[in-house]
């Protein structure tokens, strides 16, 4: 009679076999990372694979300190952990405690370690950074004598300022001999005493650039009393030397631009200064002249000659006013006279005569206005429009009006 087992029982049995296997409890597995997922819980799930197979892996959040880099697809790694069964799925997987990079990855770890160490020693600290002089006369270059890097540096430096003395130390920048060669170059530059120093090389793999991650190179750059600009590889490559240098340039060309001032700009700057100085001085003189002129005008205005002239003008003006006023007065009178003449014309007795009136006068010619002025028998005359007639008073009587 054969036993029938539950799934759970089978899984539990297998799990127990794994747990009791000493080797499976601590195993190092080499492979390539794929299907890597960082879960929000902090656990990392991935698959380790090589040419012949795959194994599921998990690194729990609690073990994350065993991973010193960002895990990513395609990385060659060595996972240290245990192999155990996940009963729910009936699957075994590798539980990672520590993940290290393999090959280039190992170099990378050495890099990380040295970087941490030097950083802790304070060698990257901003207070040790020397300012790069703006107007260097001599430029030291420690790099390979051939290749794009040295060509770019020389071309750009000379284009910006052909009067800068460039001194090259032809260094070995790759392989075993590179680090000591670069250190020698830096020391040689110190002896010569250049104003600014570029240390670097063109792009390459992490192995190619490795000399710039060596401690002796970092130390030499740090100790160098000359401001050092690092220019290693491409913009994305960061070496230890970059962190220690006083300034990191993304490329050798950029390093030359940072190290050498632009001659044309320098000339323009100086011309600008000269014209500023001249302009400001002229401006000041101009302003003082303006003030002097202003004062002169005021003085002239206050001079006695001017006062007299002003008074004379004033007198003339007054005279003119007087004249005008007089003229006006006369005009008014003349006008009034004309009016009176018109009025008088209306009142003229001669006019009345025209209308058939007459006036009487006594023998002496005095106008008679009352009957009392004559007595009967007196002679009188009556004046008409075109002459007079004479007569004698024959009677008189009073008449009340």
């Amino acid at each position, binding site marked *: 009679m054969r036993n029938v087992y539950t799934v759970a029982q089978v899984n539990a049995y297998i799990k127990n076999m794994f747990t009791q296997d000493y080797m499976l409890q601590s195993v190092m597995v080499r492979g390539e990372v794929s299907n890597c997922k960082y879960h929000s819980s902090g656990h990392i799930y991935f698959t380790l694979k090589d040419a012949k197979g795959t194994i599921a892996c998990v690194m729990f959040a609690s073990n994350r300190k065993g991973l010193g880099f960002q895990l990513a697809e395609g990385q060659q790694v060595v996972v240290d952990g245990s192999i155990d069964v996940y009963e729910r799925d009936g699957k075994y997987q590798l539980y990672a405690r520590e993940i290290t990079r393999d090959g280039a990855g190992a170099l990378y770890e050495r890099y990380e370690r040295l970087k941490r160490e030097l950083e802790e020693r304070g060698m990257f600290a901003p207070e040790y950074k020397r300012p790069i*002089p703006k107007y260097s006369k001599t430029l030291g270059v420690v790099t390979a004598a051939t290749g794009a890097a040295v060509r770019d540096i020389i071309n750009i430096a000379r284009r910006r300022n052909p*009067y*800068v*003395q*460039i001194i090259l130390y032809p260094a070995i920048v790759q392989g075993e001999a590179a680090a000591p060669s670069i250190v020698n170059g830096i020391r040689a530059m110190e002896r010569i005493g250049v104003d600014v120093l570029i240390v670097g090389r063109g792009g390459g793999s992490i192995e190619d650039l490795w000399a710039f991650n060596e401690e002796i190179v970092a130390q030499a750059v740090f100790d160098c009393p000359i401001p050092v600009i690092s220019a290693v590889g491409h913009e994305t490559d960061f070496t230890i030397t970059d962190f220690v240098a006083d300034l990191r340039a993304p490329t050798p060309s950029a390093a030359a631009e940072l190290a050498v001032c632009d001659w044309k700009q320098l000339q323009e700057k100086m011309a600008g200064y000269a014209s500023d100085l001249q302009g400001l001085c002229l401006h000041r*003189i101009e302003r*003082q002249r303006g003030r002097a002129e202003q004062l002169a005008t005021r003085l002239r205005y206050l001079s006695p000659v001017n006062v007299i002239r002003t008074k004379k003008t004033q007198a003339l003006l007054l005279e003119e006013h007087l004249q005008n006023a007089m003229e006006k007065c006369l005009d008014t009178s003349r006008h009034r006279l004309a009016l009176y003449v018109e009025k008088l014309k209306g009142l003229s007795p001669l006019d009345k005569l025209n209308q058939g009136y007459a006036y009487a006068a006594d023998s002496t010619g005095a106008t008679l206005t009352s009957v009392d002025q004559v007595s009967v028998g007196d002679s009188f005359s009556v004046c008409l429009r075109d002459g007079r007639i004479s007569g004698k008073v024959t009677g008189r009587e009073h008449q009340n009006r």
Partner: protein
Amino acid sequence: MKKTTQQDEELSLEQAFEQIEEVISHLESEEITLEQSFQEYNKGMQLLKRCNETIDKVEKKVLFINENGGLNEF
């Protein structure tokens, strides 16, 4: 260090430029008298002249350090 003593003796371009900027800001200020402005102008032009003298105008050949530490033309 050799470099610093050298800088003490001769005014570096950067220092000279700083001083010129100072002169210019003096000239721009309102308080200064005409006499002072002439003095400042003179000082500025002298500084510029010194800058010009400081600037090396001889074109250089690239040199390289040989194995004995000597210099050769590249």
